[in-house]
Every structure is written in structure tokens, then in C-alpha cells.
């Protein structure tokens, strides 16, 4: 069964450093998402991406964040200058066209900012 994959599974970085989290969505999917979950809290929407552009973003997704689909298969989330409060689990998700299709989530990248 096709699945969303994410790398790395765990990333440790120092405050102020740039990180890139990578995702490979399911191949025939058209909508891509990033969510994050701070430890012990609920999953929060960050950004959605469709047709090579951001379709919606949350208040969390400020100028420090960017997304890219550089080669038609990978979908990346970049944080330019990490803060301590960026420590969280980051999930990538994708879905196919339509209004009733489920979002498939990757296993997540645990980001620890020290």
C-alpha cells in the first residue's frame, strides 16, 4: 500500500539554524499539507499546497517558514532560523482530488531545537 514518507525521523538543531524537513507524498496525490504537534498538544495545521503554490496557511506559518516541491516528488518544509518553540513533531500529509478523500499522514519528523 502506498504511503507518505518523511526524513529524517529525528532532527536536532541549534537555535538560529536552518532546517529542512522532507516528505515524499503518495505519487498520484495533488494536495499536500504540513502539520505540527508540540509535545502533549493537539495537531495543528501549518500550510497546504496545491498546483505548486500555497493554498492556505495558518498564523503559525510566518516568514520563517517556507515550503517547496522542487522536483515533482519531494515536498519540503524549511524553517530559516529555528526557535526553541519550533520543537515539535512535524507531519506531512497528502490527499488526492475530491472533497471526500482522506489525508494520509507520514510518520513525522521530531524536531528538537536546543
Amino acid at each position, binding site marked *: 500500500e502506498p504511503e507518505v514518507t518523511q526524513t529524517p525521523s529525528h532532527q536536532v538543531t541549534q537555535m538560529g539554524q536552518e532546517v529542512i524537513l522532507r516528505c515524499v507524498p503518495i505519487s498520484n496525490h495533488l494536495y499536500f499539507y504540513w502539520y505540527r504537534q508540540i509535545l502533549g498538544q493537539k*495537531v495543528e495545521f501549518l500550510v497546504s499546497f496545491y498546483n505548486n503554490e500555497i*493554498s492556505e496557511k495558518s498564523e503559525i506559518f510566518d516568514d520563517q517558514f517556507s515550503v517547496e516541491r522542487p522536483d515533482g516528488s519531494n515536498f519540503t518544509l524549511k524553517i530559516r532560523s529555528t526557535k526553541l518553540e519550533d520543537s515539535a513533531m512535524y507531519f506531512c500529509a497528502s490527499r488526492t482530488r475530491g472533497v*471526500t478523500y482522506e489525508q494520509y499522514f507520514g510518520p513525522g519528523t521530531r524536531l528538537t531545537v536546543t
Partner: protein
Amino acid sequence: SQQGEEDPQALSIQEGENATMNCSYKTSINNLQWYRQNSGRGLVHLILIRSNEREKHSGRLRVTLDTSKKSSSLLITASRAADTASYFCATDVLKGAQKLVFGQGTRLTINP
């Protein structure tokens, strides 16, 4: 506004018993989905129920949706130790990119 508020926040039952978790939401939705998350792991999709459906079954799972009350319930029958996890409901709204809005989740513990 908050969407997908689950209750209870934590539930502990004996293996073999049924577990019921509830979810309430505030705005009109396309679908409501339930996900499971084992501690520190990814989100596993369990079941999706459309806004025009009232009940759906998948194996030991039964989901109901009451759009008039803006609420849903997830029933796990004949629980097993492996069902121990956090369960989240997630709603997607009628417009936009259909982002999912998650609740705080119910932490379910199945005691052997």
C-alpha cells in the same frame, strides 16, 4: 474557534470492554475523520464519515455523526491491549484547502 473537542480526555477500561469517545465541533464540515496515534508516533487514519452519513462501520469500529448536534462518536468494540493509543477526531471545513482541524484527543488505555 475550537473544532473537534473530544471527550473524555482520558479513558481507561478493561480488555474486552467497549470504548466510546466523543467529539464535538463548531462549524459546518465536509467530513469528519478519526485518527489513532500511538505514543510519539504518526497518525493512522481509522475512518472517514461524510457530512451526509449518519453511521459507518469498519471492523470493530463504529462511527456516528450527528450534524444537527455537531457531534460524532467513535466506538471500539471488544477492546484489545493494542488499542491503547490516543484518538483524535479531525474535521475539514467546507471551503478552502480542506485542512484538518484536530481536537485535543482522548487517551485510551486498555488494561489486560
